[in-house]
């Protein structure tokens, strides 16, 4: 037994030097991440509202080829969002505080309450956290690391979320520090890419933006 202990100490001794630089690298990495997130959050705090366009490309095994949806989004921080697809099938999803509305061409506006609709509440919490750059909150649910100087690589901590999200990579615009591209990889190989562009910051929206649901708009 004594012999075995010596062997163990020997192995630990051999490995220790290897750990030290790694630890140092981790510290650097976490400091860079911290600085990066602080920068993103600082920029986000200067934006009370914004509008932008987006293109969503879904690569699903259920589709013979990637499906591209186009649309625009309007946001007033912290909890008002209008997410509208304009083509090929127009539809709108609105979050306004604890209330929500969804509608499409062949579906009348359906109102829902985020308190009572657990699925939509999860969707709203997730999307608003991302768009509000609330990384303190997101860190509780995801492990976040810097993929490169302008991208974050995110993996879910919870098993339930990990069941349908493998990883998320967010690439930020250099100047505005707003998300430019989001890549969502699913466990079975499916993926989704959303590209945001044409940002307009701190603009005002008519009140009906977050109360009226007209998909053809």
């Amino acid at each position, binding site marked *: 037994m004594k012999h075995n202990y010596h062997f163990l100490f020997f192995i630990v001794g051999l490995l220790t030097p290897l750990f030290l630089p790694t630890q140092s690298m981790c510290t650097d990495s976490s400091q860079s991440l911290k600085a990066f997130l602080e920068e993103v959050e600082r920029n986000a705090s200067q934006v009370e509202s914004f509008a932008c366009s987006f293109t969503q490309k879904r690569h699903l095994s259920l589709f*013979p080829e990637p499906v591209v949806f186009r649309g625009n989004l309007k946001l007033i921080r912290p909890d008002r969002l209008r997410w509208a697809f304009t083509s090929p099938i127009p539809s709108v999803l609105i979050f306004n505080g604890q209330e929500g509305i969804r509608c499409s061409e062949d579906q009348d506006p359906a109102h829902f309450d985020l*308190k009572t609709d657990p699925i939509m509440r*999860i969707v709203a919490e997730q999307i608003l956290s991302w768009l509000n750059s609330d990384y303190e909150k997101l860190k509780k649910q995801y492990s976040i690391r810097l993929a490169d100087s302008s991208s974050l690589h995110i993996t879910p901590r919870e098993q339930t979320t990990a069941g349908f999200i493998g990883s998320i990579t967010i690439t930020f615009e250099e100047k505005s520090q707003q998300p430019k591209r989001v890549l969502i990889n699913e466990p079975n190989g499916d993926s989704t890419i959303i590209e945001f562009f044409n940002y307009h910051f701190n603009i005002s929206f008519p009140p009906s933006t977050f109360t009226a649901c007209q998909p053809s708009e």
Partner: protein
Amino acid sequence: MNNLSTTYRILLVTGLVLLGGLLAVSSHISDSALDLLPGKAVRGDLKLLQELGLVDRIFITLSIDDQLDTKDEDTFEKLTASIEKFKGQLSDTGEFKTLLYKLPHGYETSLFTVLQPHLPYLLDQEDLSAVQHLTTEDGIRKALRHDFSLLNSLAGIAVKRQVSQDPLAMTTILLKKLKHLKSSFNMDVRDGYFLSKDGRSLLFIAVTEKSLTNGGYAVRIKQLLDRAFRVSLPSDITPKVIGTLPHTLANVNSIRHDLRTLIPIATLLLSALLLLGLRSLKAFFVLMIPFLAAPAAIGITSLIYGQIGGLALGFGIVLLGIAVDFAIHLYLALRFDNGMRYEALRKIRKPILLAALTTTSVFVVLLFSQVPSHRQMATLALIGILMAVLLSYLIIPMVIPSKADERAKSSLFFTFNFSSLQSYRIPIILFWLIFIFGGVICWNGLRYKGDLRALDVSDHSIMEDEKYFRQTWEQQGEQGFLISKGRTLEEALENNSLVYSTLKKNSNISFQSIGPILPSISIQKEHFTAWQKFWQKERRSFEKRFAEIANQQGFVAKGFAPFFNWLDNNTSFLTPEKLLNSPLQPFVNSMIKRVDNNGSNGQTSHYLVLTTVDITGGHKKPLLQLDQKQGITLVSNLKWRSQVENMLRHDILTLSLSAACLIILITAITFRQISKVVAVLAPVLSALASMAIFSYFRGAELNMMHLLMGIMVIGLSVDYGIFVVCSRNNNTSKVSLIGVSICAASSLIGFGVLAFAYHPALSSLGTTVLVGIGAAWPTAVWIAPVILGPDSLPDATEKL
């Protein structure tokens, strides 16, 4: 009386009292509220509720101070932190079977995952018509177009698996029926916690290990809750508790309080009355008689029934107060015996024995009541009265000197002047007849009230807490329970399926049932056979149709392979075990119970499945029809009310009539003259008439306590008539009238004090008996002698 006989008497009294005391000390007092309920059926119903754990459920609302202007998120976090701490405190006590305050993780998505594979077993014939519509060309097109939008929406990633397994959304057919799983509370489920609509309260449900109808156990649980509240809740979070617990505590506390305060007050007042009325310290021996008789009565009653109910004990002791009457009459007879003790004893023997006979007769009749507590009270009173008569004969002659007390003649507190009564004979009798007629009219206007809550303590704080609960959780209407029973779980589920299918047909009935997700295996087999038959016919053409439309809608048809695999491979039945291993476990646990009994045939078990129904609407009929089926029981105030009303009507009519017949028979055999019989019964009639008039003007409702009161008043007031009529033959009218008056005054004190009781049943008993005796007394003193005629009135020649 020589010294030897005095020694024997002392030894006998000591022996009897000691034996009674020993029996009383070893008797077991039970607090079970079930003893108060009439009939086996109602008690059986409540036993079912106990077996299901419903009686032992405690509902706790934790609310944050309304004045605090905190953000929703902060309020929620504070509430959840407190409720978790509170749960931890209660878990450590080991006194709770279930602590439900949160749904398990993953409850949001669990319904689809758990139920979808078993759809073929859960969808009924009606649902298959909906499935048929979904498999048409139009149905498929609509469903896939919706799927395409959904998959490309923000929620698309989360629902992808669901779409590939169920592209036609057949599960929604079942999910629509799950509205019947929703409780009658209106709440939000946030992170699994039960949150009120205003976001300021959380709900916590605890089920205790033992019965909360037991007073002692309820006190212990209250102490545990209070401790847990103190340790886990900050000052701005207030707990409010409703359920059986506060009612048991209120009843136990009020009865204890009443007995602790009212018995000493009544004893004090009674002592004062006897001292003033009899003007002698020896009056204390008279007062002692019921107290000496009580231990033996309690001990023997407990021996007969195995235990004695707390309420029966309280009321029974009050009933024993009647026993003082015999001692008073004997005392007065001996005190004014004019030196002829033997003669005095002979004269008083007949009325005392007759009064004891009539009183015990009415209590014998009460032994046939359907309320166990009434039977215990009757036994207690019966034994106590017989014991009191015996003790009166043993003790009173010992304490009264054999020579007549000359001073006593002048010390009598009461004086009567009857000579003028006879000249007003006709108007007095007419007035009395009108009064009796008024009583008869009012009697016809009385209703039987079977609401068991009439016996409950209407504590203000309990009512406030219940009102707060209804407001916070927006609970409306009154709940009833349909309980499906079976020797096996399958049998219980079979009965429950019948309940579910019946209630489903009545769209106006709102109910909560496990029926839609857990039919019996035999019904699941039926569903599966119909499902197979449908798909055997449709399968080939459907697949072709589906593939074509899927391609047109932008899908790869083989992407739906999970769906077709599921159609082709038979899944197994949905069993309760599968549900118990899912996040639906708390719900299933609250609806299905296995009950183990240790009987003479060894351990047996049965199963109960619960359905809760809103019974406020006008849909009594289907519920009562279900109650008639074997293995299904409706447990609700709605049914009890009619059952209790029927039993009450039966008891009041049969028992009161039997008591009346017995008394009439005894008096008729004894007195053999109509005028004497009417005179004996006059106080009884007056008492019943005044009680009917009083009850009529107090709301015209009779509850279970009135039966007891009626019997008791008959038993008491007939004695007044007996003593008055017997005294006529003995030329002792004045002494008897004084005796009757002291007895009536003592009863008025006893029941007058009881009228101030906090417990509604005690107070109701006291008030109504007070009114009855209040009318019987003047009738015995002024009307009975008038009915007997001029010869009966005490005249100047009568010697005291």
